[in-house]
């Protein structure tokens, strides 16, 4: 069944020569030439001959990787097209090396009926460079009161269900949703948060919030909801996905549940994997996110969980916000950072050279693992498979600025930073959707 939609662009013919091709699905890590004809990979090998009229891209020193898949994008469509639309978000995705992204349902109106879902699919077919899939809401209007028509939404092509942005307010509604999942083969993605503990919190509760006098978000706000959700998933044998896990304690609950056979997957964001609450000392509102940046001990636990597979995948939680929602005092600013264009560069630079994470594992966590969770074909570099890849120059540096980002919003946690690792080109669903400098 179709899970993603995009514009019908001309299929690509291209020979990418001399890149290091890393495809963990088939255990490939070697310098290869990759030939694409009419959007399909036709040859992977040494010194592939150039067919007449086919463009050759010299990629010596670059990486050619299965394209990335983001399970957690806020496209802001419908309702906040001033912040992002499907054209801008898909261009940002393409520039970040993504070949598929999945949109969260907390829009205005929410994606809680099949007609809304179907209208977005048509919009994606008209506007999206990169294939876009859609989450549907678990409850109508994200109110945690009434279930959406989950069967009809699944039939219409929803990838899964989520009220992300909001937690499910009580155990009963999550249980009912888990029960009803049995009529579909989808999953529920939860934003784990106990509102009574979150309170008016704006950053991680700890030594830095004590010093800054900012209301804290305790780790237990997340871990209690993680534990609760795992218990319900176990009891109902429902398929659960944990969004943006940020605390060591949540990971302990998660690891235990996996051992006992609970059907659960989990994601971590680039910002939680690379930044800590110490950065909030600057009171820069681009560092305000929910869940908040945590201390180094949590960050380290998250990296280890990503390495070991307790965390399945990296997801961006790409959350564009208009300038007037971020250019206010820290305490009053909206939560969230954009992330599609910076994800690979920040994680690669922070973890691969220092060997906290191998490149094949990073690629698996950004590409094939999220594809499996979403139920789409895993991007892979093999003959007869559609071309879904990106070419990255790991030596190239670039500065994150409002002008260098393709998202409509510049609320990046890395705004102003110089990053190492640049996506040179992206081929998604056999179409060239991004070429640096083109």
């Amino acid at each position, binding site marked *: 069944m179709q899970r993603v939609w995009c514009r019908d662009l001309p299929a690509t013919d291209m020979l990418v020569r001399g890149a290091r091709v890393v495809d963990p699905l088939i255990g490939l890590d070697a310098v290869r030439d990759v030939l694409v004809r009419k959007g399909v990979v036709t040859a992977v090998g040494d010194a592939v001959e150039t067919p007449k009229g086919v463009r050759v891209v010299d990629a010596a020193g670059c990486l050619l990787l299965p394209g990335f898949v983001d399970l957690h994008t806020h496209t802001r469509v419908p309702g906040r097209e001033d912040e992002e639309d499907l054209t801008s978000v898909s261009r940002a995705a393409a520039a970040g090396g993504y070949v598929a992204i999945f949109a969260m349902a907390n829009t205005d109106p929410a994606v809680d009926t099949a007609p809304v879902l179907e209208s977005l699919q048509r919009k994606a077919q008209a506007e999206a460079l990169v294939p876009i899939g859609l989450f549907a809401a678990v409850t109508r209007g994200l109110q945690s009161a009434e279930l959406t028509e989950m069967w009809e939404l699944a039939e219409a092509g929803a990838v899964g269900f989520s009220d992300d942005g909001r937690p499910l307010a009580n155990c009963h509604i999550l249980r009912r949703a888990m029960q009803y999942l049995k009529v579909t083969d989808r999953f529920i993605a939860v934003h784990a948060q106990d509102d009574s503990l979150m309170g008016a919190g704006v950053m991680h509760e700890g*030594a830095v919030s004590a010093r800054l006098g900012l209301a804290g978000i305790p780790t237990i706000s997340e871990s209690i909801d993680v534990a609760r959700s795992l218990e319900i998933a176990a009891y109902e044998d429902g398929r659960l996905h944990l969004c943006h896990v940020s605390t060591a304690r949540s990971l302990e609950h998660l690891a235990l549940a996996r051992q006992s056979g609970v059907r659960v997957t989990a994601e971590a964001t680039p910002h939680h994997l690379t930044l800590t609450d110490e950065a909030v000392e600057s009171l820069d509102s681009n560092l305000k996110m929910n869940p908040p940046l945590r201390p180094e001990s949590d960050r380290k636990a998250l990296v280890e969980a990503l390495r070991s597979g307790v965390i399945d995948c990296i997801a961006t939680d790409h959350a564009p916000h208009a300038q007037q929602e971020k250019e206010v*005092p820290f305490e009053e600013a909206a939560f969230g950072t954009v992330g599609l264009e910076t994800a690979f560069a920040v994680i690669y630079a922070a973890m691969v050279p220092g060997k906290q994470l191998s490149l094949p594992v990073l690629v698996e966590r950004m590409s094939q693992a999220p594809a499996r969770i979403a139920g789409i074909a895993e991007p892979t570099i093999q003959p007869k498979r559609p071309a879904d890849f990106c070419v990255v120059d790991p030596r190239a540096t670039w500065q994150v600025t409002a002008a260098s980002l393709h998202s409509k919003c510049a609320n990046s946690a890395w705004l102003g930073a110089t990053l190492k690792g640049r996506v040179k080109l992206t081929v998604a669903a056999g179409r060239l959707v991004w070429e640096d400098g083109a």
Partner: protein
Amino acid sequence: MAKRDLLSMTDLSRADVELILDTAESFLPILHRDIKKVPTLRGRTVVNLFYESSTRTSSSFDLAAKRLSADTIAISAKGSAIDKGESLKDTTLTLSAYSPDIIVIRHPAAGACQLVARNTGASVINAGDGKHQHPSQCLLDLFTLRQTFGRDLDGLKVAIVGDILHSRVARSDISGFQMLGMRVSVVGPPAMIPREIEAMGVGVDYDLEKLAEADVVYLLRIQQERMAEGANFIPSLREYTAMYGISRARLRKGQKVMHPGPINRGVEISAEIADDEDTLITQQVESGLAVRMAILYRTIVGFSESDAQEAV
């Protein structure tokens, strides 16, 4: 000379703090003359931008500027364009068009003065931002302590008692007091002590058992809004007073009592102690004027003598 902001006590070195205190001391005689005005900052402009109600801080910054002959503009949230929904950034750009030398700002949200500082050429002085910092209060507290105990405050012990969690005064005082070698502990109901506050190098107590060890007992007001139904920071004001209220019986003779005001007589402080001669509350208010004159002066003329020569 690059513009200098005072957003947090951590913006100041020990030498800066001592210079401000010495400058304040040199201004003190002016306040006791018949003509309480000097021409030092004539032609300079100070904007007082207050998003929160304030009696002593706004009046003392205003008077401090006037004593130094600066022109002042006072903007409060009520009755200005802020009432009409103007953003802090736009208000800052508007006021900056008058090219003020200093913007003094009080705001209910931490991060407000950083935002103002990024959007103006004026020097920004934080007069209280949320629960974050209140550096001029810390400096006037230090000045009061110097007047009481002499210039060397090294080793002096202070117990800060009350709602530490919501107190910007506590945060500024902890760093400022420690900078001058004082030892600080915080005392209060457990939910009003921030988690991991020990990382700031303070002792933590949940009762008054060790209060006698302190040379100075620094009281904080229990704010009524913290008593909202369901907040449950403490069970009742009555119980707070019973456990933490400071009365004669709980003080050692000679222990000094301070409070940033406004006080709640009969809650955190008994009426008898509020009026006691070992209580430094009115001295703190007096210090406030001289210290804020010194802050304005140093912010404009600089922290070194060569800067000062150039500016005056």
